[in-house]
């Protein structure tokens, strides 16, 4: 399910400000992992190693901001950039950034801006909105509940094991259910199989 979450990296020296940002980000159900850095030493390491969607960076970062920005834009073109500034009245423009938030902004404004940005990154797709399983996915759930392995499911449904695995991933993402026992309960509750036919819970 982590695939439809948005991950953030906060580059900010102050613990107090970082915790404030963390709290705001935590208000969004779409927020996935949030990484924190006190300075830019490991910035590129984290950016290349982890899947980061949004970088929040303090305008007072000691190193040259334009330089960092340039490097980021060259290497990570999908990354959204938020600049965090000391005061909202500051008319400074920060070209190249997707968003500016300031320390003295009211919560509602910040939330609204972030909400828009998050929606840009993860537009609520039609597919995501409907958690309905396709007929094929229902077939797979049924087989899982009968206690079949991926290979056996492939043989019964005439699809490759690889396709079975893809179906399973989508099923888990749609339902929020991961374990075989959990999927079995789902299958029984939705009349995909009879309770006596379930392999698990034994």
């Amino acid at each position, binding site marked *: 399910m982590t695939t439809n979450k948005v991950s953030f990296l906060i580059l900010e020296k102050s613990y107090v400000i970082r*915790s404030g940002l963390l709290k705001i980000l935590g208000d969004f159900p779409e927020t996935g992992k949030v990484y924190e850095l006190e300075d830019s030493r490991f910035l590129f390491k984290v950016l290349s190693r982890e899947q980061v969607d949004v970088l929040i960076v303090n305008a007072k970062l000691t190193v040259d901001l334009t330089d960092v920005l340039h490097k980021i834009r060259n290497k990570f073109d999908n990354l959204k950039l938020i600049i965090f500034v000391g005061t909202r009245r500051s008319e400074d423009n920060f070209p190249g950034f997707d968003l500016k938030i300031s320390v003295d902004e009211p919560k509602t404004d910040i939330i609204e801006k972030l909400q828009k940005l998050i929606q840009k990154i993860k537009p609520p797709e039609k597919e995501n909105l409907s958690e309905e399983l396709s007929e094929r996915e229902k077939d797979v759930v049924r087989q899982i509940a009968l206690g079949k392995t991926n290979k056996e499911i492939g043989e019964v449904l005439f699809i490759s094991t690889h396709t079975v695995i893809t179906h399973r991933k989508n099923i888990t993402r749609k*339902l*929020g*259910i*991961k*374990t075989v*026992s*959990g999927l*079995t*309960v*789902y299958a*029984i*509750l*939705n009349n995909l199989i009879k*309770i006596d036919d379930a392999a*698990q*819970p*034994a």
Partner: protein
Amino acid sequence: MVITKDTKIADVILKNHNLIPIISRFGIKFGFGDKSIKQICDSYDINADFFLEIVNAFNDKDYLPYRKLREMPLNLTVNYLLKSHYYYNKIKLPFIENLISQLEWKGEDAEKNKSVLKKFFSQYRKEVNEHIINEEKEIYPYILETEKNFLNRNNLNPEFTEKLKTKSITDYADTHEELNSALLDLKNIIIKYLNPPENREITEQVLTEIFRLEKDMADHTELEDKVIVPVAAEMEKELKKQL
């Protein structure tokens, strides 16, 4: 808030009720008046430094995680973990199981709903129990033995030396993830897919208890994965060099 030896234990609990099961696990009973943590620990014969590390770590995620615990004797942490095993197996899981068995539905699916939830939970209980038995019979004793031999490494126990040649702490399969997934599934099933039971109050209790258990187990697992296992692995590595 950082909890210190002079903090009144009543203030700790009033500030964070999630610590209630933790202090119970140390055997501390209510009615502590204005006693400080130091006084309480003395009267119950609890290692106050260890107690403080546990409550601080569970109270505040940002508290320097487990650094000091790693330097303390492992049997302190192991003893605490054993107590929380007892709490899961003998108190919390039976309690939740009983709540689940009280859920009632109307209509034709009533029996089916009841039986499927019960089965799911008893399967989960079985898995938790197997996990705990494996830890108590295999992993914890090996960890404590490793520590004991490490502290006495100039004079290794020959029996342990043999074990060291074939065993490794990293071999122990980790089922924490799987157990956690089962709880997440159960929450989703009740919140999203199950016909709402007639007795709403009990349903809410079941859910609340599952959320609590999840948090409690996450803290427990952290002590295993971030304290006792890595510390013992370090010691094991040193000892293997001596072979």
